[in-house]
């Protein structure tokens, strides 16, 4: 509300009154630096936000030339001269109201006001402390680039632009967040993106009414459907190369200032199993790895549930040696196998959460305590059976193979375990039906999450069932529009 009001307040032409208004609006904030000086015979002030700009740049490129201006008739002539005869920085926006004024100084601009002028000139001399480009932490890669997104949206834009030098790449900057005034950047290839998708995403973004945007999770609800979805229909990536491959396929991405991740729309289920390395290795090896990932996903979700249901209800599925081994192990355990499994899985989740949240040196200690002490002693004391612990460990490790689906896998693993423990394979089957229907109902902007499997698109199988050769895949100019049910 306050920002809306600020938009309506025009910049005051009198310097003293202007400075007073700025102080009033900023609440006397200590980081708003107001430097009054005279140049060309006109009283001026250069206003900036401490720590947001480069001292060396502003001294060399702005302060030195601007203080050396010869006498001018009035402030209009001074601004005209600066605007047209001095190239003090490459980014030189203007502000005629206090909303734009504060947005500029809070974005690292140095803003010049002068006595008798009802507008302000800004110079892009940003120089705030930023994290340098480093290797992505959550998306491991062997053969591809080791650059990941950083927190600065403009750096991220440059990372994309460096990889896609085509003029068809459009990067649209806009502001969202009533308080945070966060820069968002909509990225797309204008020759590839389905126009309907772009319009719908724009419309969704227009509906964003937030005070702050501090993570991708803040805007996801606005670009995803409102239905209950077990799997997210929008993807995230912290790799510029991955994002470029998505943009080439006609997808739309949203970069958010302050977040080293891009949101990609739409996302398909099969994409969770694709990594950039798949395209660096030989196709036959990539195909093998991809099927390993599909298998690992099923193990991660179903293995504990199938184990419990087989041991409790369907022992005929096991051969006699295996059956005797399990009977022997489970007889010694004091708890029911379902309780035991639930306990082990929940303990794993607790340990995992502790490992993530604690400082790294302590996190290592958690691993030692949990893995060696708790695990070993629990088995030795007979509290947990060895086969069950092995099964749980296998399921958990398999889940790491598809980190993108980790949240859904965690919940589904527990749900299937309860269902299998209560109703055996019948319970697992009917829960599988519900999950399957849920996955199939996941759809954003007319792009079914389960494509190209259902609705079936045979052309899409060359990057899902197998990994075809790069020339074959690139020659067919695939865009995500092929999967749209609206087209």
């Amino acid at each position, binding site marked *: 509300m306050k920002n809306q009001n600020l938009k309506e307040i025009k910049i005051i032409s009198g310097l003293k009154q202007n400075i007073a208004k700025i102080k009033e609006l900023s609440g006397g904030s200590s980081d708003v630096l107001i430097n009054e000086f005279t140049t060309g015979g006109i009283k001026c002030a250069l206003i900036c936000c401490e720590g947001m700009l480069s001292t060396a740049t502003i001294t060399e490129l702005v302060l030195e030339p601007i203080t050396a201006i010869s006498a001018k008739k009035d402030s209009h002539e001074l601004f005209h001269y600066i605007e047209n005869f001095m190239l003090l920085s490459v980014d030189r926006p203007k502000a005629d109201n206090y909303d734009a004024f504060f947005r500029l100084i809070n974005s690292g601009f140095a803003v010049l006001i002068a006595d008798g002028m009802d507008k302000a000139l800004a110079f892009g001399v940003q120089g705030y402390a930023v994290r340098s480009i480093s290797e992505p932490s959550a998306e491991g890669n062997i053969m591809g680039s080791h650059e990941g997104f950083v927190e600065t949206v403009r750096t991220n834009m440059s990372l994309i632009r460096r990889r896609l030098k085509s003029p068809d790449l459009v990067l649209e900057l806009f502001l969202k967040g009533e308080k945070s005034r966060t820069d968002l950047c909509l990225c797309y290839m204008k020759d590839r993106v389905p126009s309907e998708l772009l319009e719908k995403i724009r419309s969704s973004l227009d509906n964003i009414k937030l005070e702050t945007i501090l993570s991708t999770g803040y805007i996801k609800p606005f670009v995803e459907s409102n*239905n209950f979805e077990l799997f997210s229909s929008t993807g995230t990536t912290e790799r510029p190369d991955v994002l470029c491959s998505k943009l080439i396929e006609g997808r739309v991405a949203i970069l958010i200032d302050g977040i080293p991740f891009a949101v990609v729309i739409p996302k398909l289920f099969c994409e969770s199993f694709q990594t950039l390395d798949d395209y660096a290795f030989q196709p036959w090896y990539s195909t093998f790895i991809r099927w390993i990932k599909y298998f690992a996903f099923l193990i991660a979700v179903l293995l504990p549930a199938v184990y419990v249901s*087989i041991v*409790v*209800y*369907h022992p*005929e*599925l*096991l*051969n*006699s040696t295996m059956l005797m081994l399990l009977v022997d192990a489970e007889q010694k355990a004091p708890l029911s196998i379902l309780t035991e499994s639930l306990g082990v899985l929940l303990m794993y989740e607790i340990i995992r959460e502790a490992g993530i949240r604690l400082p790294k040196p302590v996190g290592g200690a958690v691993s030692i305590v949990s893995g060696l002490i708790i695990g070993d002693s629990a088995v030795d004391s007979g509290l947990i059976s060895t086969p069950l612990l092995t099964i749980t460990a296998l399921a958990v490790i398999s889940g790491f193979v598809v980190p993108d689906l980790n949240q859904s896998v965690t919940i589904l693993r527990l749900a299937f375990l309860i269902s299998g423990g*209560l*109703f*055996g*394979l*019948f*319970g*697992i*089957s*009917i*829960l*599988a*039906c*519900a999950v*399957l*229907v*849920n*996955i*199939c*109902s996941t*759809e954003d902007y007319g792009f*079914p999450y*389960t494509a190209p*499997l*259902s*609705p*079936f698109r045979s052309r899409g199988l060359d990057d899902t069932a197998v990994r075809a050769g790069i020339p074959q895949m690139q020659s067919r100019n695939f865009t995500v529009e092929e999967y749209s*049910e609206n087209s």
Partner: protein
Amino acid sequence: MEKITKNQLTAMLLITDAFTLFCFKGHICLITALGFLCGTVIQFLMSVPLVSLCKNNFSIEKSGKIIQVIYFIYIVMWGGMLFAMLWQASDVIYIPYENSHGIWGKLLIAGLVALVCLYSSSTGIKAVSRASVIACAVGAVCLFIVAVSACFGSDWKNLLCTKNSDSFVNEISRGFVLSGGLGSFAVMLGNSKGNPLKNAVYYFVGKIILTAVITFSSILVAGGIMQITDFPIVTSAQLSQPFPVQRIDSLFLIIFAVFAVFSIAVQSLSAGSLLMKIIPSFTHFRTTAILILMIGSAFLFSGGNIFRPLYAVIIAFILLIIPLFLLIKRSVK
């Protein structure tokens, strides 16, 4: 109802057909298999008036209220029949809770299936049809494993030795009773993309292949003990074991449960789309009401013999007589 593709239509209907075949009660012999196959060809011929209506942008949803009500009642009753089949067949399939808790176990199992159907139906025809394609593909793989396993235990003499007192016409009639899903076929054909004739041919060819695989493998495996078995398809699945020290009965249980859910969900969706046209103001709890009606009607069929000739006549009426009447009415206009 949103438009569905040929593959989706076929998958949804084949799942229903496969489920009813799994629940088939009685003897199967070569004549039965041939009767079922011949019956499917007759069903295709009988669907010609419906196909020609659909070619001219007809759908049951757009027809008169009386027609909609007839189809609605039929589909609800058929949904009830599917629940009854589930109850009867679950006696011989090892469903953990059901077997040890009598009627309450049965109700719990039916309730769980209904719950999943309720959720499935609430997501709409698109989601269920997409899921049906995947379920059908998985089912086909499982059936292939069961069929290959059946080859190990098959006795080709069973094709000739199995005796049955029923006539060929009776077998055609029994085949018709298994084809109650044709009500949904009638409702959904008008909402399918592409040429309705091609869609119908695609479905009936799929149905012939499915029926042939299931019935023949059942005769080959369980033909020798057909006289003492109630559910021949289930028995043949139980007898088909590829490994000497392990059993794969549970694989069949998985297909059975998945197909039960989807076949009932398809009926509830079809009935739901009709109910929306019959009573447009009935928006909340529509699917719940339909599933309650289905479970209620299941009690009508639960005790008695499901495979009565009367039901075959009703199915023929739904598939042929009504569309034929509508076609003639249109032609006269």
